[in-house]
């Protein structure tokens, strides 16, 4: 049974937690921009955390259901409506055949997820549903296996966790935490001071590949040429013009720009949701702290 795209959005796609094991061939991992919201939607519907999910960016696609489904909307609040009637986030929603889901305005956050109960029957590439560069077109279909849509009516995902995750993503004044990278030591003192004290913002030059930031320009003590080496999601690159580019889900596997540091994994979903009009502060953190924060977050989703 299927779900149909009846109007195209700007950059909507199926994503899961990404495709690993092929980066040595230059194949990008892809995956959800905000994996926390994807986990949340899937956990609420009793799916595996790595279950494929629809990722929507505003203005989003308009989606029509051809049969009954249970869905859950998480992440950015784009004011979702089902046949013009507003529906809630972070809770299972029953939809019926011919219902249409649209998103009215980008109230909070940048990336919205629609989790669907049931197994996807769309093709995978290299063990992942995430397909780099493949965006929803009008008439595209998402195929869901009928047999896998049963949901245990007595199960309810912990509402405290829902509240905590939402708060963590959207009402959080903690700086975005980073760990210094190999080129950190090549930054001038002024540049380090700016990076850790001045506000930055995300320019409109931002997509699933990465976000260009605006803020004080940075420089290296001596112009340095680096041999290209692997980068990760969250890598903060210094471009030759002094601006910062942060790599996101569709990042290249190898980079030759100065690698200033990495945003810690637990803060990446929050970074992905920051809108252009908001200011960002960075702070340094320790490796052990990053690991503890991630493990604590992950533990809340294991059931």
């Amino acid at each position, binding site marked *: 049974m299927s779900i149909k795209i009846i109007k195209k959005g700007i950059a909507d796609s199926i994503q899961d937690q990404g495709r690993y*094991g092929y*980066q040595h061939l230059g194949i990008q991992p892809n995956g959800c921009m905000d994996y926390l919201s994807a986990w949340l939607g899937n956990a609420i519907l009793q799916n595996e955390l790595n279950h494929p999910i629809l990722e929507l960016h505003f203005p989003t696609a308009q989606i029509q259901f051809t049969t009954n489904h249970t869905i859950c909307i998480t992440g950015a609040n784009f004011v979702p409506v089902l046949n013009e009637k507003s529906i809630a986030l972070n809770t299972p929603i029953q939809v019926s055949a011919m219902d249409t889901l649209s998103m009215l305005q980008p109230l909070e956050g940048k990336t919205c997820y629609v989790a669907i109960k049931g197994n996807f029957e769309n093709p995978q590439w290299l063990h992942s549903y995430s397909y780099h560069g493949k965006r929803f077109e009008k008439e595209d279909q998402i195929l869901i296996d009928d047999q896998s849509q049963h949901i245990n009516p007595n199960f309810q995902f912990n509402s405290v966790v829902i509240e905590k995750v939402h708060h963590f993503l959207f009402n959080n004044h903690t700086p975005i935490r980073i760990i210094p990278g190999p080129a950190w030591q090549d930054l001038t003192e002024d540049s380090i001071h700016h990076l850790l004290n001045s506000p930055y913002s995300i320019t409109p030059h931002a997509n699933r590949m990465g976000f260009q930031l605006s803020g004080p320009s940075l420089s290296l003590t001596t112009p340095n040429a680096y041999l*290209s*080496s692997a980068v990760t999601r969250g890598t903060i690159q210094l471009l030759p013009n002094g601006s910062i580019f942060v790599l996101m889900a569709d990042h*290249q*596997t190898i980079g030759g720009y100065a690698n200033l540091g990495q945003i810690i994994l637990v803060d990446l979903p929050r970074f992905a949701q920051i809108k252009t009009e908001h200011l960002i502060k960075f702070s340094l953190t320790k490796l052990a702290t990053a*690991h503890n924060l991630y*493990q604590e977050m992950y533990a809340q989703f294991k059931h």
Partner: protein
Amino acid sequence: MRTSINKWTIYSLGDHALVFALTPQIDPAILHKITALHQFIESKKINGVLDLIPSYNSLTLVFDISTFLQNKDNSTEYMKNFGEALIISFEKEKTENQHSANEIIKVPVCYDPIFALDMDSLSDEKQISIASIINIHCAPIYQVYSIGFLPGFTYMGTVDPQIQTPRHAQPRNAVPAGSVGIAGPQTGIYPSECPGGWKIIGKTPWVIFDPAPTQLSRFKVGDQIQFYPITQLEFDKINEYK
């Protein structure tokens, strides 16, 4: 986290990757050690390792935090010990490995003007005849030092200084798949049509990236490659893009 052992530097890259690096030089001997370490770690089938990415003088191990660091109280100490122990056992085992020299892969390239978009201007710039440029480009055995930018895009070196040339200041909107380009000391093949700034001097009839899961990238880091010139007629005969 950063530590050194023998000639290796081991450092964490963010919170979910670990880098093993040697001296930052474009050197076939260094690359050989990197690819040997790649094979060694791969053969260990370590739980939680998501990717191993070789490039020039480094090998980056990407891991899943919850699996790789399961129940480790002091993750920083654990990563340091893990990295050092890995290098020690690698260096020990390595002496028992025979160095199997890679076969040289001979790659056909048609340098005809219809494919070699920048050949005329390169010949003018360097005051070297097109025939000589082709000879100079075909003479070396190139190493694949890195694959990235696009799935299957190979970074090879080293191009003879006589024909080294910078990238275009303004990249082309679309470089055809199979195009062979040069940029500074590097030469490479575009696996698919995309924007690109390298100077294009020919085209291979080989498909070098095929998304079919059993095919993927035709080359891997550490491969040795030599180009040889073919005519347009030969190109049409081999052409895998048909």
